[in-house]
């Protein structure tokens, strides 16, 4: 979602709630659905499963987020996007990153997976905890362009921490997949 679209969305929220309206966690979660992932903006932080908890109390709005990767350089940007989006509610906003629950690619929602696929990112395969990572990586990932399963892993590491690079031997295109983690 573009900056202008977010601003418009904030204005709509302000018009709807008014300053004295009751605010509940559901409204906050809906607003967070406007916050895109900075590295893969077709999906929101809600669709990625990063939003672990939302609480509203007398002190304001508390949001706890799960980083997809510990060293993700986009975390500060996500924090400020969340603060900006929730500023529409006119309450203090407290955003925390935590590891109490480790984020896993299994948390990506069905909608999020569909959007990843539609924009050329193969969605992650389900985590199989008992299987060595190499065996999991060697399983062919369907090509997001042509659907073929005749694909090979080129590099378990890609342009960002959460992506791997594959190649489709059918349509002969490289593509990226969200890492299974």
């Amino acid at each position: 979602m573009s900056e202008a679209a977010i601003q418009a969305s904030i204005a709509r929220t302000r018009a709807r709630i008014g300053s004295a309206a009751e605010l509940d966690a559901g409204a906050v979660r809906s607003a967070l659905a406007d916050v895109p992932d900075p590295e893969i903006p077709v999906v929101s932080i809600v669709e990625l499963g990063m939003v672990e908890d939302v609480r509203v109390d007398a002190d304001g709005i508390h949001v706890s987020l799960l980083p997809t990767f510990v060293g993700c350089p986009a975390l500060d940007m996500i924090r400020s996007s969340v603060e900006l989006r929730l500023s529409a509610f006119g309450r203090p906003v407290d955003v925390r990153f935590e590891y109490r629950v480790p984020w896993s690619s299994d948390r990506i929602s069905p909608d999020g997976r569909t959007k990843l696929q539609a924009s050329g990112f193969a969605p992650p395969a389900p985590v199989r905890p008992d299987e060595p990572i190499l065996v999991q990586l060697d399983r062919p990932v369907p090509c997001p362009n042509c659907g073929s399963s005749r694909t090979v892993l080129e590099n378990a590491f890609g342009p960002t921490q959460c992506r791997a690079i594959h190649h489709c031997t059918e349509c002969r295109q490289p593509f990226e997949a969200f890492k299974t983690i």
Partner: protein
Amino acid sequence: MTVAALPVAALGELLRSMADDEFVIGFSDSEWTGIAPILEEDVAMSSLAQDELGHAAALYGLLGDLTGTDPDALAYDREPDAYRHCRLLDHGRGDWAMAIARRFLYDTADSARLDALVGGSWAPLADLVGKLVREERYHQMHATVWLDRLARGGSEPRSRLIDALTTLGPDAGTVFAPLPDERALVEAGILATSLPELEARWRAAVEPTLAALDLPMPPPVREPERGRADHGEPFRWLWTEFNTVRRAEPGATW
């Protein structure tokens, strides 16, 4: 457990040693950006570096919370002798075989250490480790694949790999070098078992891989009590590199 029972000094030493390990290997990996033998490895080593520096930042963050210190100051503002990374990481960049041998030895040892911290009694560290182990599986896979490739890669790759393992091997066990008052960590349930026991587990874990490739097992560590000291010239060089910007403009932000 209550805050009063937390062995703060010993926990601080553990966090510092782990953070410094990740910080130094992260910067060592970043030295390969642009000069790795193939393009895929430029990307892979850069991504590994980013992961490790991220892990270091998270660990310095915990240490900072524990001691009331700025994490950036912990990372950048110490003299070289005050870093507590293990001697395994003190050999300089070397050739590609050195990079792979270092990663294999470190990743396998780090994995043994993390396994002993999963589910520990101090939640901030136990929670973080629960996340780190998922990422480190990729690192260990990467190192193991390359170890295999070099070991079976004909005379030159194999002899370079054996040279690298011979150079690094005697320092590999320094990941488990004794920490001040580590017993308090075990008694408090932060660390599941002692570092010597972890070293034994690590040796048992790597032995089949190395034996299958007819590669030398790391010998016992000489002077383990100095395993995180005496850093030497290669680290002084790296130290000068990684804090150049910090020293050029103290307090700069971006």
